[in-house]
């Protein structure tokens, strides 16, 4: 491929080749190169985000399901008490906070953020 006529151009092709060769090349849209490079950079980033998001979210989810299965009623009562306190219907409310439960929620949140970022970044970059 040299940009000149192909060496194997047959005589019966010459007429059409002449017509089509007269079609001028069109310049790519402004910002094309930058758009490609942004998508490439997004490609490079996302492979690390997905495994991290999964590593954080999956154990947290598993723990949350296990905890809710084991102490679901206690957690429901604690949440009710928190809402009652927040709504002002009760002056005092008793609830216990399980540190691991809070940690699991926090890690799940971080994992969800990472996953969301990995999900939206390529689309956002490509759309620019």
């Amino acid at each position, binding site marked *: *491929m*040299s*940009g*000149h*006529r*192909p*060496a*194997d151009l047959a005589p019966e*092709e010459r*007429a*059409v*080749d002449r*017509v*089509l*060769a*007269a*079609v*001028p*090349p*069109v*310049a*790519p*849209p402004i910002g*094309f*190169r930058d*758009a*490609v*490079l942004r*998508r*490439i950079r997004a*490609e*490079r980033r996302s492979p690390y985000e997905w495994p991290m998001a999964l590593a954080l979210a999956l154990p947290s989810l598993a723990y949350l399901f296990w905890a809710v299965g084991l102490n679901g009623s206690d957690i429901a009562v604690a949440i009710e008490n928190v809402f009652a306190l927040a709504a002002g219907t009760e002056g005092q409310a008793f609830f216990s906070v399980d540190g691991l439960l809070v940690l699991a929620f926090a890690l799940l949140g971080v994992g969800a953020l990472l996953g969301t970022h990995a999900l939206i970044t390529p689309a956002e970059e*490509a759309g620019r």
Partner: protein
Amino acid sequence: MTDQEVVARCLSGDRDAFAILVERWGGRVYNVALRITADADAASDCAQEAFVRAYRSLHRYDPAYPFGPWILKIATNASLTHLRSWHAHEEPMGDEPPEHAEPSEAGPEETAVRREAVSEVLAAMTALPPAYRAALTLRHLQQLSYQEVADALELPLGTVKTHLHRARAALRARLAGRRKGMS
């Protein structure tokens, strides 16, 4: 620096070297996509997609072969896939002559006549089936050899020759039909 050297640099960890390939081949990749899709926005998307796919598959590129046909093959596949997808069933706006063609040195009158002729050819080409458009684009606009066209379209050499023969005949018929309709 040759394309193969740039690819080697990319593979050895200098991922920014890929920008050289985008600059070097961006125009031709975009034009292949434009002629196959006959839509500027779709062509830009397909050309970008082609470079992203090429970047992902750089390790599969064989430096014993030229880079051009390889990237044009990816661009052709991306464009044909786009045409097959559900949102590509709308009629492309292919009758438009290139609005921002690269500058020529012809005078205004000659440019106008040429523009009209080009517009006619592009309109006739747009009416052809996508596979024929792809074959004509690679062969006559990108000047690939028969073998390179066959590789790009992943078709046997004989099939490509038949495709091109039929595509040229269809193009000639459509051009003749348009000219007859105008007179």
